[in-house]
């Protein structure tokens, strides 16, 4: 028989502390779909996704009932589309439409993989593909896009960084009736991972097998509650408590991932334990940091608290499962976290502090609204800064900023649902245009040369 306190702890985690399986993401290779024309490929892509993921939603709902843990999102990630679109790059939008159609047919929440990996160089067909992104994101609903522009091994492709600043601006412009919503579905990575189940950055790497199931688990509220239970603890004890909590959450994720993979006839890929906030109160990473003893997130000490949190989460996760992957750590998307929103509204959280925080957490500058008149070169420079942090520190970093058309500091954008709302954050007014115009490759750091 189980320890009754353990049983009740699990029930409380779900009922009161927002423990959930944030996503079951099925990764599907689209390499077998490449055909002679865009139309033929689009049809094969649609058919393959619809057949492989046919039971995804049904299985997820059934598992959710059986284990008593909510499964919030059902998603699909696919091979970076630039690869399968290479023979007909100018018509890539047809594949984008087929991907979005498949997502609608399946009834899933998001489909990721309208992506390109250009961290060392950008072929003509990849440039053509990337130029289709604004239009595709403006005309699709569930499709997400990500571009990898740098890595610790290859350096930073500054030509791609320059292009992505412009693409982000165009995407915002084409979705200006919704405050630049298209940009919420577009991530620019350094050191992108191939098995990430979280959006908007999920894609199915070419090193992966045919069909895999990756699971993302969340639970900022559970961690916050655990910390609340030991108000006098020192930081060593806090780290231990976070680690134990992360262990339990990851185990729940692993169980669901294994069973989902079995029922869906796919391989079990990884469990990604990432503390992913939602705009709901009590489901916030910022509030964890504040619970540790900060008056408001963004003040001095924030980076240290976040570093400890991120590391303890990883350690608990690694102990719980030998298949930990994805990003695993703490996310700090501003618009999706009630504590971050409030700190930003009160001026306590600025883009420079967020950049420092990204050096020690699992991703980057995420869901940050900036003035609509921010030049493309400034956005490129923000991307370059983040990529530099990722490249030098051997970690994934990302930029998902929304230059909200027609809006400035003092205004707010509201995307609703899990994407939340964000006050417009100021960026530096001084120009970075000459730096960005140089182009070329920032060489890989010396410590990448390990062979």
């Amino acid at each position, binding site marked *: 028989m189980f320890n*009754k306190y*353990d049983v*009740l702890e699990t029930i409380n985690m779900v*009922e009161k502390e927002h423990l959930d399986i944030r996503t079951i993401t099925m990764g599907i290779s689209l390499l077998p779909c490449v055909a002679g024309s865009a139309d033929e490929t689009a049809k094969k892509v649609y058919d393959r996704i619809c057949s492989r993921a046919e039971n995804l939603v049904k299985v997820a709902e059934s598992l959710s*009932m*059986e284990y008593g*843990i909510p499964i919030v999102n059902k998603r699909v990630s696919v091979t970076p589309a630039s690869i399968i679109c290479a023979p007909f790059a100018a018509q890539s939008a047809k594949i984008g439409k087929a991907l979005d159609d498949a997502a609608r047919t399946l009834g899933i929440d998001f489909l990721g993989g309208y992506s390109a990996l250009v961290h060392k160089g950008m072929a003509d067909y990849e440039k053509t593909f990337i130029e289709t992104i604004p239009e595709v994101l403006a005309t699709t609903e569930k499709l997400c896009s990500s571009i990898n522009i740098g890595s610790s091994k290859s350096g930073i492709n500054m030509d791609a960084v320059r292009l992505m600043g412009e693409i982000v601006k165009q995407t915002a412009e084409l979705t200006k009736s919704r405050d630049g919503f298209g940009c919420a579905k577009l991530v620019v990575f350094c050191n992108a991972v191939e098995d990430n189940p979280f959006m908007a950055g999920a894609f199915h790497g070419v090193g992966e097998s045919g069909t895999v199931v990756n699971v993302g688990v969340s639970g900022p509220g559970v961690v916050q509650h655990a910390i609340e239970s030991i108000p006098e603890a020192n930081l060593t004890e806090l780290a231990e408590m976070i680690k134990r909590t992360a262990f339990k959450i990851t185990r729940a994720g*692993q*169980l669901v991932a294994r069973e989902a993979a079995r029922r869906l006839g796919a391989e079990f890929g990884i469990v990604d334990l990432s503390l992913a906030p939602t705009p709901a109160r009590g489901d916030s990473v910022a509030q964890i940091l504040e619970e540790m003893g900060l008056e408001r997130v963004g003040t001095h000490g924030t980076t240290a608290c976040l570093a400890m949190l991120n590391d303890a989460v990883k350690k608990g996760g690694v102990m719980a499962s030998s298949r930990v992957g994805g990003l695993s750590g703490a996310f700090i998307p501003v618009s999706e976290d009630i504590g971050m929103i409030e700190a930003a509204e009160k001026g306590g959280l600025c883009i420079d502090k967020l950049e420092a925080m990204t050096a020690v957490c699992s991703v980057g500058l995420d869901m940050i609204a900036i003035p609509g008149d921010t030049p493309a070169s400034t956005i490129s420079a923000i991307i370059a800064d983040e990529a530099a942090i990722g490249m030098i520190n051997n970690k994934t970093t990302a930029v998902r900023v929304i230059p909200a058309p027609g809006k400035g500091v003092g205004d707010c954008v509201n995307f609703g649902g899990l994407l939340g709302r964000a006050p417009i954050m100021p960026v530096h007014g001084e120009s970075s245009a000459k730096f960005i115009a140089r182009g070329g490759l920032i060489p890989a750091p010396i410590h990448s040369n390990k062979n």
Partner: protein
Amino acid sequence: MRAVVTVVGKDKTGIIAKVSAFLAEKGVNILDISQTILQDYFAMIMLVDMSGAKDELSVLAQECSEMGKKIGMSIHLQHEEIFNAMHRV
């Protein structure tokens, strides 16, 4: 297959009777019961055998939850593996 039933709510007369009668009707065999009062709240945990159950686990879980609402309690029926996974190294 075994599952865990938890019943949590304000203590009152007849909770065990109602829940066990419901489970018997559904062909679910009770293997073990543990009951306690936590901060004025009644908390009961049952380990049950589902091999003779008339419905699938996911269906029964839904029915338990609905039955709980009728008697003003929060009732969960979950696969035992979730507790093994989370609380055993």
